[in-house]
C-alpha cells in the first residue's frame, strides 16, 4: 500500500551501498555508541525491573544510537541524528538507516481505528522512507487462528498486535522476539500493562491500548421511572433496575455469548469493585469460591436477574443486541466499554449524550466504596523469525510514541499511559468521566497465566448458567475452582 520510495530518501546512492554488509554495522552499532547512549534518556528504554541482567541493559540504548552509526556509515549525519540523541522514545523510529526493508503489520483493527493505524504507518514511512509497511488487517474473530498458524511456520508478520491473553503462550512458544533493546521509554506507561508484556522478566510485548467498562444508562428512561440520578452502589442499581419496569423498557442486560464475557464484561467489573479474585495473585490456584467479593458479584447479578426486568434472550446475549436495545431506548442499564458509543450512534444517529445515553462509574459495593472495572488491552510484538528485526523495532518504537498511541486509541479505546485520559479527545468529553474515575482501580480479572483463555472459558461455563438458574453463587464458583485447579492450571 505504501510505495517503496527508499531511493528518493536521504542520500539515494547511499541507500544502495547500505544494502551490502550493513547488517553487521547495525549490530555493531550498539557496542560502538553504548557509552554515548548510556548518558542519554534512551537508557531508560528498558522496562523498570525487567531484570534480564547486564547484557540487556547494555543493549538498551542500541536502537537510539544505531541511528547515529548507520547515519555515519552512509556518509555523514542525517537530520535524524541529533534528535536521536535527545530522547529514545521520540526518535527511535524516525532515524532508521538500515537497508531498505519491507515489513508486514498485522492487526485486528477495523473502521476508524484501522484508519488511524494506517495514518501512523504512513507517517512512519515518511520518517523512514527506506521502510515499507504493508498492512494485513484480519477480522478479530479469525485473527488468532491466522497468526498462530503463520507464526508457527516461522512465517508470521513482522510486527503485530497481540491480545493480552496470548502474550504468555506466544512468548513461551518463541513466536515473539524480546523487546529489550527496542529503545522505548516506558516511564509514561501504566506499569501494570508493561509488566503484562513480560514473561520471566523479559519484555516480549509493549502495550498499545487499554480499556475499562462503565455503566451505561438511559437518562430519559430513568427520569420516566422517577429515578433522580444514576446508581452509585449495588443496592441502588438493584432497586433502579426493578423500578424501570414501569416504563415498559428492560432494566438491565448483560453479555453472555462469548468465552470472555463473564470474566471481562458481566461479572468482572463488579468483582473488581468488591476486590474479588478468580485466581490468587500469582496465578497458581483458583480461589473464586473463597473470595467474598467474587461471590458477592455473582450474587448481585443473580439478584438483578430475579427482578425480572431483563430482556428475553439473556442466555445468549450478544454485544450487538445489547447495543441495539440500548440505542432504541428499550434498555435502562448495561455495562460496556468505550467502544459501545460508536455502535449506539450507528444504530441511532439521533442519540444524544446526557439525554439518550450516559455513562457512570461501575457502582460500588457499598456507599463510599470504590468504583473499579476490568481492563485488558492489546499489545505490540515482533516476530522472532522476522527478516528485518531492526526495521521492526524501529516501527515498534514509532508506534509506541505517546502521540501515536493516542491517535490509534482515540476512536474507541484508551492509550496505555498514566497521563491516559488527560489529553484530547478524552480530556473534555463528559462521556469519559466515568472511565477516568475507574481506571486507577482497574485491571485484569485473571492474572496473566498462559491458560488465561481457558480460565475465562471455565468461568463462562460454570457461572453463566448459574446467573439464570437457581444454583448458588458459591456452588457455581466452587465448580469453577475445581475445574481450573484440577484440569487447567495443572496441565
Amino acid at each position, binding site marked *: 500500500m505504501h510505495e517503496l520510495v527508499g531511493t528518493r530518501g536521504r542520500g539515494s546512492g547511499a541507500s544502495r551501498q547500505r544494502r551490502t554488509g550493513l547488517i553487521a554495522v547495525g549490530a555493531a552499532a550498539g557496542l560502538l555508541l553504548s557509552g554515548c547512549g548510556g548518558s542519554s534518556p534512551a537508557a531508560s528504554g528498558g522496562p523498570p525491573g525487567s531484570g534480564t541482567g547486564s547484557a540487556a541493559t547494555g543493549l538498551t540504548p542500541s536502537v537510539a544510537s544505531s541511528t547515529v552509526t548507520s547515519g555515519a556509515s552512509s556518509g555523514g549525519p542525517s537530520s535524524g541524528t541529533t534528535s536521536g540523541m535527545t530522547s529514545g522514545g521520540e526518535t527511535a523510529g524516525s532515524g532508521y538507516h538500515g537497508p531498505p526493508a519491507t515489513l508486514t503489520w498485522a492487526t485486528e483493527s477495523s473502521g476508524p481505528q484501522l484508519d488511524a493505524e494506517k495514518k501512523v504507518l504512513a507517517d512512519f514511512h515518511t520518517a523512514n522512507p527506506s521502510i515499507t509497511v504493508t498492512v494485513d488487517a484480519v477480522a478479530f474473530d479469525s485473527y488468532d487462528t491466522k497468526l*498462530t498458524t503463520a507464526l508457527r511456520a*516461522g512465517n508470521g508478520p513482522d510486527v503485530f498486535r497481540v491480545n493480552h491473553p*496470548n502474550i504468555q503462550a506466544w512468548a513461551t512458544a518463541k*513466536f515473539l522476539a524480546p523487546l529489550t533493546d527496542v529503545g522505548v521509554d516506558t516511564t509514561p506507561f501504566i506499569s501494570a500493562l508493561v509488566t503484562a508484556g513480560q514473561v520471566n522478566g523479559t519484555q516480549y510485548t509493549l502495550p498499545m491500548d487499554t480499556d475499562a467498562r462503565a455503566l451505561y444508562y438511559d437518562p430519559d428512561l430513568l427520569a420516566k421511572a422517577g429515578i433522580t440520578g444514576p446508581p452509585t452502589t449495588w443496592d441502588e442499581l438493584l432497586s433502579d433496575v426493578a423500578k424501570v419496569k414501569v416504563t415498559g423498557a428492560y432494566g438491565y442486560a448483560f453479555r453472555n455469548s462469548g468465552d470472555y464475557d463473564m470474566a471481562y464484561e458481566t461479572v468482572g467489573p463488579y468483582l473488581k469493585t468488591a476486590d474479588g479474585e478468580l485466581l490468587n495473585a500469582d496465578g497458581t490456584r483458583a480461589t473464586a469460591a473463597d473470595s467474598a467479593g467474587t461471590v458477592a458479584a455473582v450474587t448481585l447479578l443473580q439478584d438483578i436477574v430475579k427482578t425480572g426486568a431483563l*430482556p*428475553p434472550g439473556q*442466555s445468549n446475549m450478544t454485544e450487538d443486541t445489547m447495543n441495539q436495545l440500548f440505542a432504541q431506548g428499550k434498555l435502562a442499564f448495561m455495562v460496556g466499554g468505550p467502544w459501545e458509543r460508536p455502535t449506539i450512534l450507528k444504530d441511532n444517529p439521533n442519540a444524544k449524550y446526557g439525554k439518550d445515553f450516559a455513562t457512570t462509574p461501575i457502582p460500588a459495593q457499598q456507599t463510599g466504596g470504590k468504583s473499579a472495572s476490568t481492563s485488558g488491552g492489546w499489545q505490540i510484538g515482533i516476530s522472532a523469525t522476522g527478516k528485518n528485526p531492526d526495521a521492526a523495532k524501529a516501527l515498534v518504537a514509532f508506534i509506541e510514541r505517546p502521540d501515536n498511541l493516542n491517535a490509534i486509541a482515540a476512536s474507541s479505546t484508551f492509550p496505555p499511559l498514566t497521563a491516559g485520559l488527560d489529553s484530547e479527545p478524552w480530556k473534555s468529553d463528559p462521556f469519559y468521566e466515568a472511565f477516568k474515575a475507574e481506571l486507577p482501580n482497574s485491571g485484569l480479572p485473571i492474572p496473566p497465566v498462559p491458560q488465561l483463555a*481457558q480460565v475465562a472459558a471455565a468461568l463462562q461455563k460454570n457461572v453463566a448458567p448459574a446467573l439464570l438458574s437457581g444454583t448458588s453463587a458459591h456452588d457455581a464458583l466452587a465448580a469453577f475452582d475445581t475445574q481450573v485447579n484440577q*484440569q487447567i492450571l495443572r496441565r
Partner: protein
Amino acid sequence: MTAGGADTGPSRGGPRTLGFVIVPALVVAAVALYPLLYNIWISLHVNNLSQADGEFAGLLNYRNVFAFDDFWSVLRTTLIWTLGSIAVQFVIGFVAALALDTGIRGAGVIRALLLTPWVMPGVVIGAVWLAIYHPISGLLTEVLGWFGADGVDLLGRSSTALPAVIFANVWKGFPFWMLMISAGLRAIPSELHEAAAMDGASYRQRIRAVVLPGLSTVLALTGTLAFIWTFNYFDLIYTLTSGGPNGATSTVPFLIWQTSFQFNRLDEGAAQSVLTFALMAVAIGSYLRVSKATAR
C-alpha cells in the same frame, strides 16, 4: 448393478491407467497423509504451540481429552447434528429434485434460485440466521408470537438450540442434495420408467421400484460426502451459538478449533483430531463395505 465384474477391464493395472490417477494419488499424500502424520506427531508431545519446544508425552494428551473435554458428549451432539442435518436435507433435496424433474415451466430459474442458500457466503448466513432467531426482533420469533409463544429464545435454550442450528444448516445444505439427485435422475434410463408405467405402477410404486434403486449409488455417495462435511462443518455453530448454551451445540470440530486456536493447545487439539479421524475412518470404512458407494 451393471453387468461386467470388477476385474474384466482389459487395461487393468497398466501404466496407462496410472496416468489417470497419479495426480489424485499424490494429492492424497499431500493433503491427507502429511496432516494426519503431523497431527499424530503433535498429539504425542506436550506444549507444542511452536515447532521448537515440546517434549514427548506419550498418550497424555489423549488421556486429557477423555478426562476433561466432555469428548463423548460432544461426539454425541456432533452425531445428532450430522445425522439430523443430512436426513432432512435429503428429504427436501429429493422432493425438490423430483418436482423439478416434472418438466415444470421455469425449472431452470427455480433450480438456480433454490441453489442460493448454498451460494450465500458463510459469514452472512450466520448473520442472517442470527437476525431470524433474534429473541426480540427476529422473524421467526415474530411468527411464533402469532401462535402465542412470545419472546422465544430458540438459540438460548439448551433444548432448542441444537434443533435451531440444524434447521439453519438444513436450509444451507439441501441444495447440494437437490443438485446431486437432479443429476442422478438424469441417469435413470427412461425405459425403466416406461416399463413401470406399462405395468400400471402408481407414482409411489415407481419411486420405490425405479427411482430409488436408480439413485442408490448417487445417494450412497452423496450421503457419505455430506456426512463427512456436515460432521466437520462448524462455521454456522460458531456464529450462531459458539457452542452454547452450556455446551448444547458444541461439536467435535468446534472443540478442536477452540482447543487449538483459542486455548493455544495445538497438542490436545491434535489428539482430538486424531481420535476423530480414527472414529470417522472406522465408521466410513464399515459403511463403505456394505454400501453401494464403491461397489460396481
